[in-house]
């Protein structure tokens, strides 16, 4: 697989150029999105779900490239915690992404793919594009903005910068400020991509070669950070892969090695390496306090939304302490906020997996 081709789905071309945090403009901008459930006549039931680093708009429908169910299929759907019988759920591919929204693989004005000419974007820029999309859809208020991980950062950015839009904000396994450890892992991923000769300074589109090896390593490293030691030990331990003894070579002797290689390789069939660079860069830059004069509480001065913040006890990538800091800032502004650290064995990925307590919290919060 050389270059990931985005399938044609629903999308909107924004009427105005997007003014970016870097000072640059992006135009034209396409935002690809999916919706689930009917929009009420008074438009009071719109819920925006924001996706994580490697996610996309297919939150609850079959992914067109992998054929797998949506990434939050267990959470979004008829009768599920984010109930599409009740809510009109919208999920958009972030700009910089590769599933139909404008990103580094999109055509620039000269008809060639942007590659590294694509401007560096921020989480706020991703949200800016979604706000413009909502305006095009005629939606001024959101019943809720919801996201896990990078999706949670978008939900926070929305509440801080467009305080009149969300009435409820649900943030799972996220942070208001990206800490050094996470920036470090993101840099490892980017360097793996850029060290791959097939990356060709980002101009690999149409060359028949793509930095699949580099992207694969980036994904493998990141994937480890999404799991917990407990779940790795439980799932793989030191078990060998399809063999009785160690090979005394460098094949994937261990099941965990084989699993990671598979995760890395399959990621390259659905994700563009340059998108990975831009999206992780946006995350590294994320600091909601810095955006608001250095005091996190000031970011939430204007919001009237209710917040619900959830962390997981085994998530060492976005540990509970980060959520707590966010909650303290929200307390300081007198915001209605709930916070709970749930117990789940799966590390950061817990928000995507079978954690019934999360289902209860999500549906309870949305019933407020």
């Amino acid at each position, binding site marked *: 697989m050389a270059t990931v081709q985005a399938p044609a789905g629903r999308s909107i071309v924004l009427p105005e150029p997007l003014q970016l945090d870097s000072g640059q403009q992006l135009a034209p901008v396409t935002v690809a999105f999916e919706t689930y459930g009917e929009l009420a006549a008074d438009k009071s039931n719109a819920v925006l779900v924001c996706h994580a680093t490697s996610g996309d708009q297919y939150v609850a429908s079959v992914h067109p490239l992998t054929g797998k169910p949506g990434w939050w299929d267990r959470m979004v759907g008829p009768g599920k915690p984010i109930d599409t019988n009740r809510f009109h759920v919208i999920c958009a591919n972030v700009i910089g992404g590769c599933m139909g929204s404008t990103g580094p693989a999109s055509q620039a004005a000269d008809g060639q793919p942007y590659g590294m000419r694509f401007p560096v974007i921020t989480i706020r820029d991703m949200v800016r594009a979604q706000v413009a999309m909502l305006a095009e859809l005629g939606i001024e208020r959101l019943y809720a903005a919801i996201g896990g991980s990078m999706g949670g950062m978008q939900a926070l950015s929305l509440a801080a910068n467009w305080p009149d839009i969300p009435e409820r904000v649900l943030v799972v396994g996220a942070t208001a400020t990206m800490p050094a450890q996470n920036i470090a892992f993101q840099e490892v991923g980017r360097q793996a991509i850029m060290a791959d000769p097939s990356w060709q300074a980002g101009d690999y589109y149409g060359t028949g070669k793509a930095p699949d090896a580099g992207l694969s390593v980036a994904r493998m490293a990141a994937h480890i950070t999404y799991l917990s030691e407990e779940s790795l030990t439980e799932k793989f331990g030191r078990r060998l892969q399809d063999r009785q003894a160690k090979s005394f070579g460098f094949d994937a002797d261990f099941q965990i090695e084989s699993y990671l290689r598979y995760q890395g390789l399959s990621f390259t069939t659905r994700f563009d390496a340059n998108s990975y660079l831009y999206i992780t860069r946006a995350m590294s830059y994320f600091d909601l306090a810095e955006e608001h004069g250095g005091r996190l509480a000031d970011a939430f001065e204007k919001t009237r939304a209710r917040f619900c913040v959830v962390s997981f006890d085994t998530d060492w990538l976005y540990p509970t302490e980060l959520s707590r800091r966010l909650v303290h800032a929200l307390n*300081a502004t007198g915001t*209605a906020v*709930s916070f709970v650290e749930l117990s789940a064995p799966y590390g950061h990925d817990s928000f995507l997996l079978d954690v019934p307590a999360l289902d209860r919290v999500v549906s*309870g919060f949305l019933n407020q």
Partner: protein
Amino acid sequence: MSQLRPDLAIIADHVEPDSRVLDIGCGDGVLLAALRDQRGCNVHGMEIDAENVAGCVAKGLSVIQGDADKDLVFYPDDSFDYAILSQTLQTTKRPDMVLEELLRVGRRAFVSFPNFGHWRVRLALLWGGRMPVTRLLPVAWYETPNIHHLTITDFRALVAERGIRVEQAWFLVGDKRTSAAAANFRAEHAIFLVSR
């Protein structure tokens, strides 16, 4: 509010309608839900146990998982009309500082606690010579969460020393109210409404 525990029912009956309330150690949120549904209060909770918090959120309450000893400092002064600490003071590491924090974040505070001065407790210690295990203090000394036992007289002494005013007080024996007379001897449980 008949389903409420008697001490919570007294608190619920004496919270002004439409107040902003913080219940510290709110448990399953039963008092908060009553204050919200029956008195129109703007209610917030703090609770240390994750399952209880999840249950509260599922009831539509705004509750944060936190610790009275550590997390009250993050609320601004006078954020609430009432701060409520029911059956929790004796479990905190520094009850005096928690009490000060209650009256910093709240204009008034309800504090309820089991009275270690109750005659059964005194007798158990006097005759048995062992730390009492009673209906309100049902757990042995080595595993009880109650690490700072106090009597009604102790509480009165603390608030007097700190310049805190007792607006009202209620005393319970079992589920029944008892008078303030000799309460330190007769009451199993006390509820104070205090302010600065």
